[in-house]
């Protein structure tokens, strides 16, 4: 498709048509006045006929000159052929929230359609085709806007991101979506935004708004906690909360452990639907059972974790150099049968260790899979050149996968060798190097001791040795309560003491300092950080054998210290009985479903607000990977109901929830349209929020720019120039004849 236009050429091409015409007319008038005035002087010498001839010739020259200046062009504009991909997809949200009328009878759908109709004509003109879709729980094709708006029933959920994802898969030039922006499918908005941005197709939202009074919802969805935890360890219990609110606010949450409030917080909730996780670190304490009860708003959910003493802890101990600490550490761990120790001495030392009580290994494995049977790997007095890159990578992979590593070395010359290794990247501290001021001070002191020893003639001090003084560990200032930090909190003989320590340059951000030196300037002695799903810890002291020898034999402080340190550092395993309420909103006489993750069918029991108990029927919903059981019942009254689940091992989980007269789905909460969310998503894809016709100009203009131009001069300027010279010559000849020259 093409059409013809005219325009000025040459230096007037960039002028506006009006400006250029005005200039040319002005020049023409001025030229004609000049010509008439010029020949008026020769009035007496010419006949009127001759004067008219000459004026006519000169005027023709001037006009031709102006025509050369104007240089008009004939332009043919041709739009490229419309391609099938140059289509516009219009999605119309037909979920229940779009059709709910406010007190004026206005719906969000009507408001959005009204806005779109202002834009639709230009869209139809500039896109090769416009495809309509309506969506709610799923996406359906529609023949027209009216069909999309009126045909079919409203849906109970809004799968907004799924619909947009489906539309983008067709690779249209742009997508327009008439919606209130409230996705009720728990799809991840940020994940979708990243996908849409990567695809590069602009999305335009036409927001549908009305004046419904907003409601809110809150569901304490589930409690996640390990089934069994070791005594005196820490573990994480997590509450998963789903809430929908009209505006940004704070949601109070509490954790009660065995009837005592142990943690509370204010969770930040933004307007719209939110899925929140609140992880809390819990100290296990002594053997028994822990009832973990999360309270969020008027919701309550609980789980039970068993605290056990005798769960076997597999420890892999690797030692790089012979030293006395192993004898005492091994004695400390083997004094408790719950520790199984596998010890490896660097094979290059050619020393055969007496068998510990764990499985035997000849060297540190090069495969993380072989390390996974251990809860913790202790690396003591190791030098960087003793571990192959594969062994270090295996340790890194092991920790990423949930294992724990405790690195112990009091030797700065050994620790600095790890600079830049995979192992160092995993550790919570950066060790000082030879050139660091901290180490320089030590070397200066050793040199001074050598000088003093040589001057005094004391050969025994010639190597720089000095009397060994034990120094205590201490809690760092402002340390938070934890099982590990408690080991350093008292001032009795239970506070460990060390003789030597490696210098630390810095503790990495995100790492936790658990202990520092208690005398003089505090130096970092023990730090820990999460790394992947596991943790890495660094103890920068010796293995504390001098402390053990300094204590009375009836003291078990050293044994307790090592056992509790390893227990507090070791990750937990296993999963507790977890009950999840599947049905989001409970109503009288409507079935409410629950699921549990037990290996064997658990017993489900519902307890009414009046205390009546009702056993629920359980069905198997297990998959190949995960065991699952589903149970359901229909509440007979409104109010606060409880559901208890008990598995074959006697573990219990409890959910407390409210039952109303009617089921309130997230779709019908009348949450306000998420205009801010739509705007942000649209702009991230290069689109916009369309509130009037001007907001949709960008795609129209983008289409217009695709039109190609073919300019063609109206005539050859050379011909005009020759004609002009011919006329001028004729005029000169005529003037000569009439004796004016």
């Amino acid at each position, binding site marked *: 498709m093409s059409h013809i236009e005219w325009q000025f050429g040459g230096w007037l091409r960039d002028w506006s048509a009006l400006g250029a015409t005005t200039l040319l007319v002005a020049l023409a008038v001025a030229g004609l006045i000049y010509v008439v005035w010029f020949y008026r002087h020769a009035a007496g010498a010419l006949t009127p006929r001759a004067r008219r001839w000459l004026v006519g010739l000169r005027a023709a020259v001037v006009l031709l000159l102006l025509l050369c200046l104007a240089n008009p062009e004939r332009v043919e504009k041709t739009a490229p052929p419309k391609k099938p991909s140059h289509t516009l997809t219009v999605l119309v949200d037909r979920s229940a929230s779009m059709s709910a009328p406010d007190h004026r009878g206005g719906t969000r759908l009507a408001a959005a359609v009204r806005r779109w109709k202002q834009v639709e004509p230009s869209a139809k003109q500039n896109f090769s085709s416009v495809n309509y879709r309506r969506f709610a729980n799923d996406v359906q094709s529609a023949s027209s806007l009216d069909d999309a708006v009126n045909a079919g029933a409203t849906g109970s959920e809004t799968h907004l991101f799924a619909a947009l994802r489906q539309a983008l898969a067709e690779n249209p030039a742009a997508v327009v979506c008439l919606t209130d922006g409230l996705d009720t499918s728990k799809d991840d908005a940020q994940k979708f935004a990243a996908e849409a941005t990567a695809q590069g197709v602009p999305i335009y939202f036409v927001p549908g708004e009305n004046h419904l009074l907003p409601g809110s919802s809150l569901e304490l969805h589930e409690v996640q906690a390990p089934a069994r935890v070791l005594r005196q360890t820490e573990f994480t219990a997590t509450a998963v909360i789903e809430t929908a609110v009209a505006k940004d606010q704070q949601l109070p949450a509490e954790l009660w452990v065995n009837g005592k409030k142990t943690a509370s917080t204010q969770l930040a909730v933004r307007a719209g639907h939110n899925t929140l996780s609140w992880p809390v670190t819990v100290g296990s304490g002594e053997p028994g059972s822990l009832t973990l009860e999360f309270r969020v708003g008027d919701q309550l959910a609980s789980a039970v974790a068993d605290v056990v003493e005798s769960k076997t802890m597999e420890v892999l101990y690797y030692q790089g*150099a012979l030293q*006395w600490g192993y*004898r*005492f550490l091994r004695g400390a761990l083997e004094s408790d049968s719950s520790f199984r120790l596998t010890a490896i001495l660097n094979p290059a030392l*050619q020393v055969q260790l007496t068998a510990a009580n764990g499985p035997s290994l000849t060297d540190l494995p090069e495969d993380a899979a072989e390390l996974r049977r251990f809860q913790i790997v202790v690396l003591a007095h190791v030098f960087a050149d003793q571990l192959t890159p594969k062994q270090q990578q295996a340790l890194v992979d092991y920790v990423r996968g949930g294992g724990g590593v405790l690195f112990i070395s009091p030797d700065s*010359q050994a620790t600095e060798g790890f600079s830049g290794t995979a192992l160092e990247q995993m550790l919570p501290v950066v060790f000082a190097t030879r050139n660091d001021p901290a180490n320089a001070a030590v070397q200066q002191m050793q040199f001074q001791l050598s000088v003093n020893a040589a*001057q005094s003639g004391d050969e025994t001090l010639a190597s720089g040795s000095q009397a060994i003084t034990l120094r205590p560990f201490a809690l760092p200032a402002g340390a938070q309560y934890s099982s590990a930090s408690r080991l350093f909190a008292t001032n009795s003989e239970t506070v460990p003491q060390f003789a030597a320590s490696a210098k630390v340059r810095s503790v990495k951000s995100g790492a936790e300092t658990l202990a520092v030196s208690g005398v003089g300037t505090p130096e970092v002695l023990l730090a820990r950080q999460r790394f992947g799903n596991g943790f890495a810890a660094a103890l920068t002291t010796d293995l504390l054998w001098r402390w053990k020898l300094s204590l009375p034999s009836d003291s078990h402080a050293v044994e307790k210290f090592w056992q509790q340190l390893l227990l507090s550092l070791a990750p937990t395993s296993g999963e507790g009985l977890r009950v999840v309420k599947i049905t989001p909103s409970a109503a009288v006489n409507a079935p409410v479903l629950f699921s549990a993750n037990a290996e064997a069918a658990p017993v489900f029991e519902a307890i009414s607000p009046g205390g009546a108990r009702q056993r629920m029927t359980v069905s198997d919903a297990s998959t190949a990977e995960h065991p699952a059981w589903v149970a359901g019942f229909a509440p007979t009254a409104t109010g606060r109901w409880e559901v208890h689940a008990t598995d074959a091992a006697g573990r219990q989980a409890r959910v407390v929830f409210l039952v109303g007269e009617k089921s309130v789905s997230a779709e019908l909460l009348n949450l306000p349209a998420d205009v801010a969310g739509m705007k942000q998503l649209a702009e991230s894809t290069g689109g916009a929020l369309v509130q009037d016709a001007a907001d949709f100009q960008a795609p129209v203009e983008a289409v217009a720019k695709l039109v190609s131009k073919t300019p063609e001069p109206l005539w050859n300027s050379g011909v005009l120039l020759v004609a002009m010279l011919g006329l001028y010559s004729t005029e000169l000849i005529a003037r000569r004849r009439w004796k004016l020259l």
Partner: protein
Amino acid sequence: MKGISETSRRRFLRTLLASAAFPSVNQLLASAGEVRGPLSPWARLQFPCRGGDNNNWNVWPNGDLKLIDELRATSPTNVDRRWNVANISRLETMTPFPFLFMHSEAAPELSGTECANLREYLLRGGFLFAEDCVNGKFHSDGSKDAFFRRMAEVEFSRILPEAKLERLPDDHPVFHCFHHFQNGLPHMQGIPHGLHGLILNGRVVALLSPSDIHCGWTNGDEWFGHEKRVQAMQMGANIYVYAMTAPTGG
């Protein structure tokens, strides 16, 4: 004046040499993968012997230093080349050392306090290697195992009555942890009762030797021949390495 200057110059040069050479040696050893790790101490136990002999515990101290040199040269143990002394009558002088060497020509005769101190030391996790110095029986009762028998029959049962003294079999780890001794303890002189272990809670907390391997350390080449000297050194290394790697028995 001249003497002072010469002494100062010598000390100064020695200082320079020590400060320059020590790190170099350490680095060299480290690069060879040997003698790394923290310094491990060696200490001789000072104790009284029969007849109020308080000066028999320190016989042939150079034998200890020769073993330390051998350990540093041929094993991965970074033993401090210092001859420390721990006094059995003062517990606090014993506990800085995880390993004590008890050696004399005469039979020990310990007081109640001394037995209690040694008991406490062993229960805390310390390790004792007690060995009969057979060579000097001229001023004892003339027998060649007075030290051994006194320790085995009297002193150990006073120190740790709940522990059991047993002859260690030839396949015991102490004979194989570093060097291999297929026939058990190498014998230098005296009565070959074999190496005995004082066992508490299934763990060896002390070793008692009748075979005077210490004399092998001291002057083995001349007294017993080169092969015996090598065996004595290697058994000494095994005992120290075994003590380092076996768990405490408390």
